[in-house]
């Protein structure tokens, strides 16, 4: 599916540029998009190195497995395929906690690490497992307790009460997280029915 979306996005863009006379912009976009992607990955290196270093200490000291025991009841319901004392649990949890506080930069390395552990649980197959899809669904629904970036923007524009946004965001985020889990379940049962 990603293959089709990727090709369709590029082809529609190119076709549109031919009709609409935006070829110059599209030419520039090809190179700028590629450059932006590399800049982003390079920028990620510092954060990845630092947080994965810290998390390795947390893993070696047993902190991660402690954290997963604490939230075991909730997480094992969401991820029935992951053994409760597996390191994947610790990474999934730390990723969710980082996301809740709007720490996107710290959340990414933890999420990747969680995926790596989930892949190992899935015998290293290059196919997304049930747990991986669940983890992704929860991530894109992005459970947010404190939308820090948005509050900062509102402060910039002299909002009367910048944190007013916390209430509605909490409700929206909670409803969409529950919906994400239900949608994920629905697709899982549809898959397993097909065999």
């Amino acid at each position, binding site marked *: 599916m990603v293959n089709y979306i990727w090709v369709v996005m590029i082809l529609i863009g190119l076709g549109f540029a031919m009709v609409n006379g935006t070829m110059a912009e599209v030419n520039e976009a*090809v190179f700028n998009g590629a450059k*932006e992607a590399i800049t982003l*990955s390079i920028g990620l290196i510092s954060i990845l190195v630092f947080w994965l270093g810290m998390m390795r200490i947390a893993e070696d000291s047993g902190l991660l497995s402690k954290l997963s025991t604490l939230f075991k009841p909730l997480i094992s319901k969401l991820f029935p395929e992951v053994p409760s004392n597996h390191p994947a649990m610790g990474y999934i949890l730390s990723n969710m906690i980082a996301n809740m506080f709007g*720490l996107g930069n710290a959340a990414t390395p933890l999420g990747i690490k969680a995926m790596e552990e989930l892949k190992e649980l899935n015998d290293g197959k290059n196919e*997304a497992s049930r747990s991986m899809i669940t983890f992704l669904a929860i991530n*894109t629904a*992005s459970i947010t307790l404190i939308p820090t970036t948005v509050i900062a*923007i509102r402060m910039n524009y002299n909002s009367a009460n910048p944190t007013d946004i916390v209430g509605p965001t909490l409700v929206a985020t909670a409803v*969409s997280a529950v919906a994400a889990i239900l949608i994920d379940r629905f697709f899982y049962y549809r*898959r397993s029915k097909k065999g």
Partner: protein
Amino acid sequence: MEIVSAISLWFIPVMIAFILIYGTYKKVPTYESFVEGGKEGIKMAVSIMPFLVGMMVAIAVFRASGALDVMVDWLRPGLEMVGIPAEIVPLALIRPISGTAALGITSDLIGVHGPDSFIGTLAATLQGSTDTTFYVLTVYFGAVGIKKMGDALKVGLLADAVAIITAIIVVTFMF
């Protein structure tokens, strides 16, 4: 307000201190563990590169050609009929595709309509309660070499759609 900014300021330092103190207490060779873990970070960043380049070029071409604007214009009348303001449409469409572009649109909407206006609040709620699905998918699956994504994209985009609709309903009722 003060509590919120205090938490966001103190959260990371406290976490770092806690990990280091606990690690030392458990007699972990902290510095060596840190270096071992950090090495993985470099490998990861490099392995993400081709996935990000592919995705971001496609998105950049699609936007620069003007196709995205036309799509927004097509959807506008239908969405306005069910009470969704047209100004929010570009944000709702871009949010799953590009985080930085969405942030740009959000600050623009807040700037133009005011932070405490209906559209300003709606934009802020949308920005806070959804995530960049394509980015998360590309980076997470790309880094560990998942080629067959299964239902992941469908699930992610449907969850985004629910989040957007919920945000609109919540903000309409609360403001």
